């Protein structure tokens, strides 16, 4: 079926790997490099596309958790509280699409950073920064797992298992 994204990507990968790449032997290095990187990038998309919605939901859950932890330390602005509530709502809405999920994660990223900037010189600055650094350590590790196929991990086997 033409609706099957995986099949569409698979046929492109096969064409690039089996037909185009051998035909380019002897081409300029940068041409071959761009082809190889194109194959790797499409391979990444093929592997992650079916998991994307789950990944975005995990990402949003993490930002909501961090925001709630921050709210335990300092009173958060009304618009941040609304964004937290909207995030919880999106996670319980089976019809919410990935764009909705990503948009709220993005808002919470901005709110947490703004909160951190406003904390400078305040008695709670250290506590807030500690929570941000701790919580984001976990989320960054998940993002590393998400992009591990790019080949930049020294020891990918040591990354935590995917939590999405």
């Amino acid at each position: 079926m033409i609706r099957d994204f995986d099949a569409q990507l698979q046929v492109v990968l096969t064409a690039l790997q089996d037909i185009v790449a051998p035909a380019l032997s002897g081409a300029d290095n940068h041409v071959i490099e761009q082809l190889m990187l194109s194959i790797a990038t499409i391979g990444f998309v093929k592997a992650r596309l079916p998991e994307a919605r789950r990944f975005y939901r995990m990402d949003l859950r993490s930002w909501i958790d961090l925001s709630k932890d921050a709210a335990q330390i300092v009173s958060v602005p009304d618009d941040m509280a609304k964004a937290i509530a909207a995030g919880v709502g999106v996670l319980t809405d089976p019809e919410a699409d990935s764009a909705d999920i990503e948009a709220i994660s993005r808002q919470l990223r901005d709110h947490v950073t703004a909160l951190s900037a406003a904390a400078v010189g305040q008695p709670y600055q250290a506590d807030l920064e500690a929570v941000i650094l701790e919580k984001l350590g976990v989320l960054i590790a998940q993002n590393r797992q998400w992009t591990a196929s790019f080949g930049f991990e020294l020891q990918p086997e040591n990354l935590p298992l995917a939590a999405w």
Partner: protein
Amino acid sequence: MTMGEYEIINEGQRQRPNDAIIAQIRDRYPTEPEIDRVLTTKMKRRQAGKCFEAATLNQLVEGTSNLISDRLGRPVKISNAKWLSGGASKIQMKFELDWTEPDGEERTDVLVLRMEPAASVTESSRTREFEVINAVNGIIPAPRAFWVDPDGSFLPYPAMVYAFASGSAKPSYDAGKVSGLGQNYGPKLRAQLAPQFVGLLAKLHTIDVACIDGMKHFDRPTVGSNQSIIRQVNSMRRIWEEDRIEEEPIMEIIYRWLIANAPPLDHVSIVHGDYRSGNFLFDEEQGKITAWLDWEGASLGDRHQDLTYAIMPSFAHLAEDEATLLGSGMMAENDLYAAYEKASGLTVDPVRIAYFNIYNRYLIAILTLAASARASRSRGTHQDVLVNYVVGLGYPALADLRDYYLGVVT
């Protein structure tokens, strides 16, 4: 939305900034005038909605010929032009030039045109690159720089012409890495190259900067002051503000720390700024470094910036024992510092090492998660697929930044 004092620009404005936004960012993060000019030019291009427009080889030949003819005041002949691969940020063309020196000497040289795309992983000044290569001429093996087109008057984008340097950036038996990231030279070649790698860094850092007449587009830092480092941190923060795709709160925390803890300079060095595997050429048979490349990030500043950059995990790999991390595929960190102290006569200060380890990790996170991501999304380069791929380094880099920072402050 109350965003606090920190934010200047939103995503829509990042994609199409207006003059007021550009001015606000410049005011908030003051940096060296030439760096300011380069970053402002980037934003102006973006304001105009200009994507990268590919030039043909013939267009580059014509532009290069016009540039050189203008500089020499006489016509020149270019032949055998072809694309040159390598690097993630600049467009390069190799060619032969028949020309006459001002003293009347007729000669034929193999040269390279190095031109910026519309956007780049590292926005930089061709003028500064031209000046620093000339400053190290005769001290560090680097290709002679001949002519520069700083504003793209003759070529589609700013460019410079320098001598072609022979050698390889990657060993023949491990040529699959992107831009030298994690390059493994193997035990034999490593043993030959590592002493040169350290020795040339020591030579670079001990050049007497006060005696250099050129480098007019570099601010001259003052020993005892940290202002030059603060300006450099501001330039990175500015790129983060201009280019990021999404916010990372850790970056704001670490920016504040870098400003608050910037150490005063104890010695002014020429800093290469990208001193690592992949940025030098070597003769594999002789085991000899033949040329240092990619001087675009050079500055006058603190030697610890290069020292810590060379051992960044992003450019390292594990040795055959599966335990020792080899910075730039050369040496373990402490071995490199000890060899450097011996070769340079300069001290390696643990406090500054800690500072610049964070500084460079902050830089790598910005170049990957912000500059590379923005440049490829905006179709700004001649190899968006490569620049986009480099974004994959972003989260390992951010994790490394966070972990190192926590190790220093807790």
